[in-house]
């Protein structure tokens, strides 16, 4: 029997629930690259991003979500990075941003 479509849907909650999120992968990432924690959210990486100029890829946002334990879609997002390395040249905190992309892809390949 076909379900009647009333035009309603259920939104997934947008809340980041730190109590429910499993921070193990995030901790592993930060243990391997503690410099990522020094991000001050300036957005220079995103402003200079080659991929970000053509797609909705936002490196700052994705790595911040990963640090909060929000892994869904992070791997696919990081695949948009072309590894050109401009962000690494510009980061005022000296974070190896390209290394972060590779690390997140390695750690979160199965999410």
């Amino acid at each position, binding site marked *: 029997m076909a379900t009647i479509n009333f035009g309603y849907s259920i939104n997934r909650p947008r809340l980041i629930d*730190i109590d429910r999120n499993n921070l193990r992968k995030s901790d592993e990432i930060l243990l391997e690259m503690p410099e990522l*924690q*020094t991000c001050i959210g300036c957005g220079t990486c995103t402003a200079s991003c080659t991929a970000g100029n053509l797609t909705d890829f936002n490196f700052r*946002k994705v790595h911040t979500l990963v640090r909060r334990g929000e892994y869904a879609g992070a791997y696919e997002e990081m695949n948009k990075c072309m590894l050109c390395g401009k962000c690494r040249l510009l980061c005022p905190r000296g974070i190896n941003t390209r290394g972060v992309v590779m690390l997140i892809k390695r750690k979160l390949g199965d999410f």
Partner: protein
Amino acid sequence: MKKRVAIIGGGVAGMQTALRLKRTGGIEPVIIEREEELGGKVRNWHVLFPTFTPAGEVLGALRSEVAAAGIEVLTGEEAEEFTDRSVKLRSERTIECDAVALCSGFTLFDATLKEEYGYGIYDNVYTSADLERMFSEGRVAMADGSAPRRIAFLHCVGSRDEKVCQRHCSKVCCITGVKQAIEMKRLFPTADVFNFYMDIRMFGPGYEELYREAQQRYNIHFVRGRISEASPMMDGRVQIKSEDTLTGRPLRMSVDMLVLLIGMRANDENGRFADKAGLTLAQSGFMQSRDLFLGNTESPRPGIFYAGAVTAPKSIGETLNEGFTAADRIAEYLGVK
């Protein structure tokens, strides 16, 4: 005949001003302190940012210099009102003088006014001042005595907040939050520490370096967003809500301890002092200097001077410098070289 200068407030600003005045040889300072001992707010602090220097070291040095210099100190005496030539005490006594230095500092923000954070209502919500007391007592624990595993610090409590009539930035809470977060991490290395901030203002030497160390070496998490509310949980812990503004999503978590980094607000008596002596207040309620560049330690009235946090929130180092500046201006005013 030696000149006499009344110094209202025996904290670090008052002591430093008095010491410099005394050294001129021609001025006899008298410190009026409301508490039973000298030291002011620094008495309640454990270690000082950014070097983790024990507060007692700074206070001890100043107190013993004051004692060695033979400076007259009136403790347990509160100034009621003053002019440039006299200070009337609450005890009805009047101190005649040739100039006045107002070094009465600030008042800590009363965190119970931010009722949404539950300070004084539920357990495990503390202020930065409470935490300093616990550090001093050598016992930091949750209300039930157990060790905290997750701690949140909230910046800007009673600062930059029109809802509690405190529009100004208290300046030192950012670095205090970083310092205390590191201290907690040192005490509880396996605990997770989160700092919720609006802006991080690292204005002093070594502060930014300490912030970076907190992030990189101590793995302290900084989340940009003001906690909107805290609520008690069944087990006595505290649930907090905020926006993680860097990802644009609401965030919720439970913590074992919530520490509110309370700001500096102007003393209530500033208004009374200003009325009686013909002085002016800044919009923040702190005393207004004659000029922010060339007359920072002077009031608009000749013979009345300021040093320290009575004019605006300041660090201890800045306050100590102002003590010297104010004393030099007073000596100049009195014609003592």
